[in-house]
């Protein structure tokens, strides 16, 4: 009862913040809509390149363009969810370095939750457009598959968010980690945008652990296309483990937080 009550309070706050984020984005409506359109075009131009490759090659290690479309559907939908509703965590190293985390720490809500919802990029609605469009052209459209696609995107979002929390929390332990975190996160997205079948042996181990991009590509495609229970379990357990690990590292990091009190020692 208490947990349900708490959940609804968080949900109410979340929705209120999203309303405020939309209000901020619509301060300049023309810009906001143009950014969404440009984001969609940008995504589609990248996907078009893969379409050309598959037109010439047919398949890559067993993957065809339909599989790639499913990958992009999950990837873009997960990224849109991250960028629209949890992007604040990307700013965490900056908040830690300049002491702005203080405002979140005195709040009666979870500071990680408050940091996460504090930023939103309206342009990333274009990723939702791309994600849903890719699902509908993937050749795997059924009513059941649609819900599997939504579920796979949710797990992919949790992995993406957890990795970003871990990378951002490095700033508690060392200085100037923003660029390192951004680069690893970018590598994660880049690996996740490749046909999963090209990674074998040790590459596959790295692909599923250090840079867990397999959770964006390999398992979601196996799950939606083959209705694989194994893929569902791996995604479910993997995302829970990554999420708990991320929260633990963040909580440990708070003990090292110095609130921007940086003294220079020559």
């Amino acid at each position: 009862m208490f947990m349900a009550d708490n959940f609804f309070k968080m949900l109410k706050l979340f929705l209120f913040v999203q309303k405020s984020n939309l209000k901020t984005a619509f301060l300049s409506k023309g810009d906001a809509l143009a950014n969404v359109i440009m984001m969609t075009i940008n995504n589609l131009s990248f996907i078009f390149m893969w379409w050309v490759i598959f037109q010439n090659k047919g398949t890559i290690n067993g993957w065809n363009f339909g599989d790639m479309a499913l990958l992009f559907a999950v990837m873009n939908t997960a990224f849109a969810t991250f960028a629209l509703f949890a992007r604040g965590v990307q700013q965490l190293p900056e908040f830690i370095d300049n002491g702005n985390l203080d405002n979140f720490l005195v709040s009666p809500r979870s500071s990680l939750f408050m940091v996460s919802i504090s930023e939103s990029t309206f342009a990333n609605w274009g990723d939702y457009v791309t994600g849903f469009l890719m699902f509908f052209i993937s050749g795997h459209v059924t009513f059941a598959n649609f819900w599997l696609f939504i579920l796979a995107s949710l797990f992919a979002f949790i992995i993406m968010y957890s990795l970003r929390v871990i990378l951002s929390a490095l700033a508690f332990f060392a200085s100037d980690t923003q660029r390192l975190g951004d680069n690893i996160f970018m590598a994660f997205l880049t690996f996740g945008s490749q046909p999963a079948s090209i990674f074998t042996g040790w590459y596959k181990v790295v692909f599923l652990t250090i840079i867990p991009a397999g959770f964006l590509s390999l398992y979601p495609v196996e799950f939606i296309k083959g209705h694989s229970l194994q893929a569902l379990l791996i995604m479910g357990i993997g995302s829970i483990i990554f999420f708990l690990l991320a929260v633990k590292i963040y909580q440990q990091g708070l003990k090292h937080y110095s609130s921007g009190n940086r003294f220079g020692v020559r």
Partner: protein
Amino acid sequence: MTNIIEVNQLTKKFKLKKNNSGLRSLFFPEYKNITAVDKITFNIKKGERVAFIGPNGAGKSTTIKMLSSILYPTSGTALIKGMIPWENRKKIAGDIGTVFGQRSQLWYNLPIQDSFALMGKIYNMDEIAFKRRLSRLVNLFEIRDLLSHPTRSLSLGQRMRCEIVASLLHKPQILFLDEPTIGLDVTAKEIIRNLIKKQALEEETTLLLTSHDTDDMEKVCERVIIINKGKIIFDDSLDRLKQSYLSKKYIEITTDAGDKIKKTVNTKDTPVKQALDEIVKKYHVTDITVENPPMEEIIKEIYKRD
């Protein structure tokens, strides 16, 4: 009266990396410990207005940040209403309000009223109670005309009034103010000081105010704790501090000929009013300022007498 804040041997050390050049520092970095707060002990009773005064780098903000659950201490304990703040962050959040002079809790692009509404949601305030509370604070701090303005368009003084209202919306019993008058002009400082004191008296809010401006403590607080290099060097009533260390006033006048004349008055021998009367009689005054001795001078005086 019971203690609402209890601090015992509280210490905070920061580990700082030395910026040595060369590859060795990359693999074997050297660290240096800086003691920002050094075994401080004090208690504050409910409704007390306490100034936490000291020069830059004395440890004022670090102490406030430990008490408001932002920082973990290196050693020692603190209790806010019987709870350890850094272990009960969410529980004590409803009992404390914080204002950081150099940081904003308001949304930069949104109208002030939207930021207040968000604070209401964060503290899970009932809609009717929130409106009633906001209306009272808006009247008290005279910010009705600012409500529809985005934060970015406010002056520093206006913004600070809104920051204080935001921190008081959930009716905290303790208000931590970290340099609330920093960067403000004389008039804005005076307004903020009066409003803080008025509100604290009306609601019996416990205040802990840090500043390096001695006027802040004189106008708002009844008790003063002076901290220097992480250690408490004075903890007594404002009256006692005035009698012992604030007996000097610096008066600066500008005459109609443009000359600037500085006078030092010992208020134990000559009341300020008498000194001003004599100056006005003697010179054609166009401008006049009366100031307390700077913090550094008071600290020097305390050390000298000890």
